[in-house]
């Protein structure tokens, strides 16, 4: 599509770097990095839609990613019949009561004229609803969580094929985004940012504390995977003969084959998304979104329904993040709510988008590759740097000891320096918006 020779060159360099990793470190490592880069690229694409196209400052990526991940558990894990028997109905009923309470409050809000009485009425509805809901929900939740807590203690999932969880993850994230957008899209830039950040923290808190849902901090592990695991591939004859041909060990070959299986799936998804995104961006739709981003007041005056468009792009972008989140969980085979941290799942993605070049889909993808590569590979670079620094010092000197043992902290330092250099020499991103 709209890639210049320079852009292609940058991608080629990135590819070459990965190839070097495959040659000098190991192919498995290169593929591990590649796969996570692809997932990151999808997240970056989602963020780019929101920020690059529409100027929506979403700092809640983490939340949408986690919701997508939750979908994998709810779709792919087998149901836990004992838990359902113990409190499944109560939980469902409780959830419905909760929703009904909120709906009732909204109806009261809409139906009654603004007055003190309305405030009281809403409060009463909420209070009664809260009490009734927790009366039903609380015991059911306790019952479910008490079912074999060491390995279960939750309702389980639907036991469906895991690939189904990807679109469902997108839909989940879209649903949450719709709710979030409905309430908070009236806010602008930084205020929207902190609102989304807050909501994503709330999502994570729920995921961590509501153990009946996905075991909370106890993690769900051993989720079915869309691609055969290397261990399952090792006995397969064609893998073995491939290993012979390549002169690799069987375990290495199996890892590579399995990894490439994921790569293929991810590339297909990324390809479709990029195609859709590029096409949209270069159409009147993209023009309208840029207009909205540039000047909302004016776009409104020119007849564009800014609120609706914002909501739509917010939902779409978040859905893409949710999809990526689902893909990641299904690749890892586990959901660990404790691992969702803003630095890793929100800010790092932002760095990818900005370093890559916001507003440019290819930029976001390249940024994802570059930053993820650095994130993973600066660690040895940091150690290596420390070794160089200390090489002149006397063995066993305190300073040398101290510096060497501090090598781990060079990881972030090196990452920071790399980031700053990149921003310095390409402040509009590696592939800037045109």
């Amino acid at each position: 599509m709209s890639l210049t020779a320079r852009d292609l060159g940058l991608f080629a360099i990135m590819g070459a770097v990965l190839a070097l990793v495959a040659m000098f470190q190991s192919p498995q490592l290169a593929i591990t990095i590649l796969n996570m880069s692809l997932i990151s690229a999808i997240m970056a694409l989602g963020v780019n839609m929101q920020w690059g196209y529409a100027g929506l400052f979403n700092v809640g990526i983490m939340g949408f990613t986690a919701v997508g991940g939750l979908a994998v558990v709810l779709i792919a894990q087998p149901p836990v019949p004992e838990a359902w028997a113990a409190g499944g109905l109560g939980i469902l009923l409780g959830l419905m009561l909760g929703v009904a309470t909120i709906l009732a409050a909204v109806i009261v809000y809409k139906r009654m004229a603004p007055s003190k009485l309305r405030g009281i009425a809403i409060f009463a509805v909420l209070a009664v609803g809260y009490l009734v809901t927790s009366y039903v929900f609380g015991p059911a939740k306790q019952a479910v969580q008490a079912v074999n807590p060491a390995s279960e203690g939750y309702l389980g999932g639907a036991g469906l094929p895991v690939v189904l969880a990807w679109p469902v993850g997108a839909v989940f994230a879209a649903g949450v985004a719709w709710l979030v957008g409905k309430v908070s899209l009236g806010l602008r830039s930084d205020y929207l940012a902190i609102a989304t950040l807050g909501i994503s923290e709330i999502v994570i808190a729920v995921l961590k504390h509501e153990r009946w849902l996905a075991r909370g901090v106890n993690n769900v592990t051993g989720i079915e995977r869309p691609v055969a695991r290397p261990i399952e591939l090792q006995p397969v004859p064609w893998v073995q003969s491939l290993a012979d041909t390549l002169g690799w060990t069987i375990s290495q070959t199996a890892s590579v084959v399995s990894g490439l299986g994921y790569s293929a799936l991810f590339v297909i998804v990324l390809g479709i998304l990029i195609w859709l995104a590029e096409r949209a961006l270069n159409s009147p739709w993209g023009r309208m979104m840029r207009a909205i981003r540039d000047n909302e007041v004016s776009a409104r005056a020119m007849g564009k329904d800014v609120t609706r468009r914002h909501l739509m792009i917010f939902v779409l972008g978040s859905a893409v993040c949710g999809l990526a989140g689902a893909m990641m969980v299904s690749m890892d085979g586990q959901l660990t709510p404790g691992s969702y941290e803003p630095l890793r799942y929100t800010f790092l993605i932002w760095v990818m988008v900005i370093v890559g070049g916001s507003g440019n889909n290819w930029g976001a993808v390249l940024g994802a590759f570059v930053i993820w590569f650095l994130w993973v590979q600066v660690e040895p670079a940091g150690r290596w740097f420390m070794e160089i620094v200390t090489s002149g010092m006397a063995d066993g000197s305190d300073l040398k000891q101290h510096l060497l043992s501090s090598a781990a902290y060079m990881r972030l330092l090196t990452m920071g320096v790399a980031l700053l250099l990149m921003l310095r020499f390409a402040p509009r991103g590696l592939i800037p918006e045109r």
Partner: protein
Amino acid sequence: MAMIRVENLHKHFGGFHAVDGATLEVEKGSITGLIGPNGAGKTTLFNVIAGVLPPTSGQVLMEGEDITGLHPHALFSKGLLRTFQVAHEFHTMTVRENLMMVPPGQSGEDLWSAWFHPTRVREEEHRIRARANEVMEFLTIDHIADEKAGQISGGQKKLLELGRTMMTDAKIVFLDEVGAGVNRTLLNTIADAILRLNKEQGYTFVVIEHDMDFIGRICDPVICMAEGKVLAQGTLDEIKANEQVIEAYLGTGLKNKVLKEEGHV
């Protein structure tokens, strides 16, 4: 029936009454001038009519229909357009794109068509682009068609503001000081364009302007606001003769200067 009818409109900022019970009518097919001292509440009145600000009280009717408090984009689709006193261009987009984004109902603005009906979208784009080119040529900004709108001169931005209203069929257009900062020769051309749009397309205009020549050239009637209220209304000559208007707005200097200038001709 009046194109726009404003009834006892109030807009207060804190304790300050920017619009303080304005009542006025704009006839269909007229070019109404709106003048008044700085801070009279003209722009605020526009903002309330165009749905940018909610009124404190009062009503706005368009062709008899109550449009008070409607969203700007809804008003746009009813054919009500406005320009901004401080230019509101889309600064990272080119001048041409600034114009091309205006026409409503573009099917390419729908994601589905953008993805799956490229031919239809392309044809439509073709038409819109041709229209944009005409408009730019008319406003003498065709040479900067591909410049980023954030980087054109102040006057050019004003022209762009006007150009956007020409990209679609409007019923009524509110122009907030299109003339300020525009070269007078070009302003004459703009005046002609407004007259032509008014005659040929039947646009109704409401024009805020401080340049009396410009007002005199195109406007009838003229409304003068002061301190949030309508001070006087009538033909320009009537207004010019109104003592209150002279005191609050025109000043006596104008007469002197006009005399002085005529001496030079």
